């Protein structure tokens, strides 16, 4: 066997597998979205029908809130852990990256333990404080999911920042606030946009967390699920999946072009 044929043969299993189980199913999904009563106008229905539009808006709002909160918390913690060496630093870092392996369902359950009917907050405070099943619970679940992922990306970028730039700014009389705004944030910007895009995309598509928490409120993944299983509205479920898939794919493409690394999305 010649060298070239051997290399081509190496790619064959991958080509066959991804054609059969990725390319063809996705084509089928796209065609199915146009097979409903509305035809291809179903994509307009997503924007025209209040049920879908409201869900889309809510999903985007919760995801945006998650993104900014995760960026704020993880950048602060990440910069602190990169710039300071102290006893217990390793432990803090392990605690902050431990949830990387938790699936969305487990995180949903952890939020229930915090804010559910038998939850910690309800036990510690007088009156009935149950927030697990509201938009706040969902936000906290997504935040739980995003903090470790954003933290790792930001820390990787922060390690490459040159501390002498900050020192120079400080000796020239810049306040700590100006150092952050003018030196640290611009240096971190590519990784902030990248990890923000990852956090937003995962929150938009998170099914496991929504599955355990979103019993009263609708987010896009839950609507896809109920349209498919309960209403048997396969065309709408497919159309929403396509729209959601395109949004998350473009966001992660941006993220990758800026940071070069990929953190498992999932959820």
């Amino acid at each position, binding site marked *: 066997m010649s060298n070239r044929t051997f290399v081509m043969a190496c790619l064959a299993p991958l080509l066959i597998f991804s054609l059969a189980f990725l390319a063809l199913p996705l084509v089928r999904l796209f065609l199915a979205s146009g097979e409903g009563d509305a035809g291809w106008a179903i994509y307009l229905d997503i924007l025209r029908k209040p049920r879908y539009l409201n869900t889309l808006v809510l999903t985007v709002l919760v995801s945006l809130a998650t993104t900014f909160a995760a960026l704020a918390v993880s950048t*602060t913690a990440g910069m602190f852990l990169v710039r300071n060496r102290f006893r217990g630093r390793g432990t803090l870092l392990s605690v902050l990256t431990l949830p990387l392996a938790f699936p969305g*369902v487990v995180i949903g359950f952890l939020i229930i*333990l915090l804010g559910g009917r038998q939850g910690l907050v309800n036990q510690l405070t007088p009156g009935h404080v149950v927030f697990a099943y509201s938009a706040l619970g969902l936000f906290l679940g997504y935040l739980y999911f995003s903090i470790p992922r954003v933290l790792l990306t930001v820390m990787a970028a922060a390690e490459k920042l040159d501390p002498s730039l900050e020192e120079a700014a400080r000796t020239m009389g810049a306040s700590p606030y100006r150092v952050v705004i003018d030196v640290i944030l611009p240096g971190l910007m590519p990784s902030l946009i990248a990890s923000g895009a990852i956090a937003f995309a995962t929150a938009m598509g998170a099914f496991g967390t929504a599955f355990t928490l979103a019993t009263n409120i609708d987010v896009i993944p839950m609507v896809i699920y109920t349209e498919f299983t309960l209403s048997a509205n396969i065309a709408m479920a497919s159309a929403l999946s*396509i729209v959601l898939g395109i949004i998350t794919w473009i966001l992660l493409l941006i993220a990758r072009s800026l940071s070069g690394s990929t953190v498992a999305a999932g959820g």
Partner: protein
Amino acid sequence: MFKSKTKILQLAVTLSACAFLLVPTILSVMAGLTANYFKGISSGLTLKWIYQVWELYADSIFLSLWLAFACLICTLIIGLPAAYGLARNPGWLSRLLEEFISLPLAVPGLALALALLQLYGSMKGFRASWTFILVGHVLYTLPFMVRSILAVLAAMDLKTLEEGAATLGASPWQRFRDIVVPNAMPGILAGSLTVVTLSIGEFNLTWMLHTPYLKTLPVGLADSYASMRLEIASAYTLVFFILIVPLLMAMQWASARAQRIAQ
């Protein structure tokens, strides 16, 4: 050492984030070991919930382990030669292929599951067997395996090594077996641990692809959250933690090692 105000503020944020992540995890572990969570720890510690989880869900735990193993074999068979093929053919076509197989990282599992169900759902024998779930898991984990190996291969001078071996008379297969595989080992190890960890925890695809007779560990978890008492749900979560946390730590160690070698 923590003198300035900003440092104290940063420390406070870091500690609050740790508390936010750690407290519910501890609550869950406690609830799984407490006789009656509602009464609190004073009701005594017990392992009876763990035993009950074992009786109820041992099948799903074994199914998940078996699936993770099968998934590892499949991703190795497909991913290892593919990574070599991509490394030997750097160009826009390879980039495009790599981008395409990475779609499952970006597109939500729910959408992929719907796509698979609509194309293969009518093939009853396939739909009802564990191999249908396996396809979903391979789809989702394959890009991690390919990229992990590719990163290591791309960093070494594959061409020179192989040319050297070829002048000594090694066939393409011998070169693959004796040069490529041993050199790619750190990437293979990191990729394998990632595949197993992700497969055991996979829920989004599996929830749509599973049948009532084939429940994986995370599907069983969702089931227990919805229908079991809090102690059993927590004990089951504890079993999951015991399984996944060592895997995660091994995965992080192996990935950091592979990254060092790739640089």
